[in-house]
């Protein structure tokens, strides 16, 4: 995998969101504006990643690996922060902030996998 701007930006956004959410859970806060907005930032990052992937794809710089695996990952990843938000606000306890924090970790792992596929790694 080539470590490009997307990986670095994704690492920062996802890590920051996870740290904020876990920190809020440690001080026993239910999900609040800050933790929810940090997860929203992860979603915004994914939308930017989606748009740039579409642009790169249509500009001739195609996915090197399995195309449908890459897009499958991306569509699933876009649903993760939404699902975490939905699951977290149904019960507003400190544990819900850890659920929100798990979204950042999950998205970063999925981003690494998407980057591997983009650079042509073999399918798992």
């Amino acid at each position, binding site marked *: 995998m080539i470590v490009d701007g997307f990986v670095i930006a994704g690492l920062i956004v996802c890590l920051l969101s996870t740290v904020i959410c876990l920190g809020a859970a440690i001080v*026993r*806060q*239910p*999900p*609040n*504006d800050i933790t*929810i907005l940090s997860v929203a930032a992860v979603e915004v990052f994914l939308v930017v990643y989606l748009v740039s992937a579409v642009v790169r794809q249509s500009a001739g710089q195609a996915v090197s690996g399995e195309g449908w*695996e890459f897009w*499958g990952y991306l569509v*699933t990843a876009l649903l*993760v922060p939404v*699902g*975490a938000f939905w*699951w977290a*606000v*149904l*019960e*507003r*306890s*400190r*544990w*819900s902030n*850890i*659920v929100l924090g*798990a979204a950042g970790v*999950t998205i970063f792992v999925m981003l690494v996998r998407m980057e591997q596929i983009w650079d042509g790694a073999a*399918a*798992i």
Partner: protein
Amino acid sequence: MRGGRLPRDGRGSAGRGTGGEAAAVGTPAAAGRNRGAGRLLIAVYGIFAVAATARAVFQIATKFSEAPAAYSLTALAAVVYVLATVSLAKTGTLWFRTSVAAVGLELVGVLTVGSLSLLDPVLFPSDTVWSVFGQGYGFVPLVLPVIGLWWLYRHRPAAQVLGQSNPA
């Protein structure tokens, strides 16, 4: 969101950090299983359910003949994770038993496949969820059923009946 939405039941607020035990007091038996930390457990199982299902579909659709045993196991893992996710989220004794069965099967699976993948790498090429005790997934598949069974033990229906008559 602040102030815009009240906790559904008035018990989900901050400061009830002990989670399930506190929530279980005064509620019907087995109601605490899908609350507090239980919701995190369900969320993690949900992630693994999606991951294993997607992977099983991909492997079986594209390269099933390469390693039928391993890819069938991915499909079995997917079923186990989906069943665990759903049953942990539901209330009631039947769903509790289903949870124990699913999480227990997960533990047996990860231990068996983890051992076999080390002893016989040809039978299990290292690309199932449970290979090398879930190494590809940060060993979460190994830790998750242990935490899950402990959580279920703490929230077994009988213990909650006892907890209500004898608060500790």
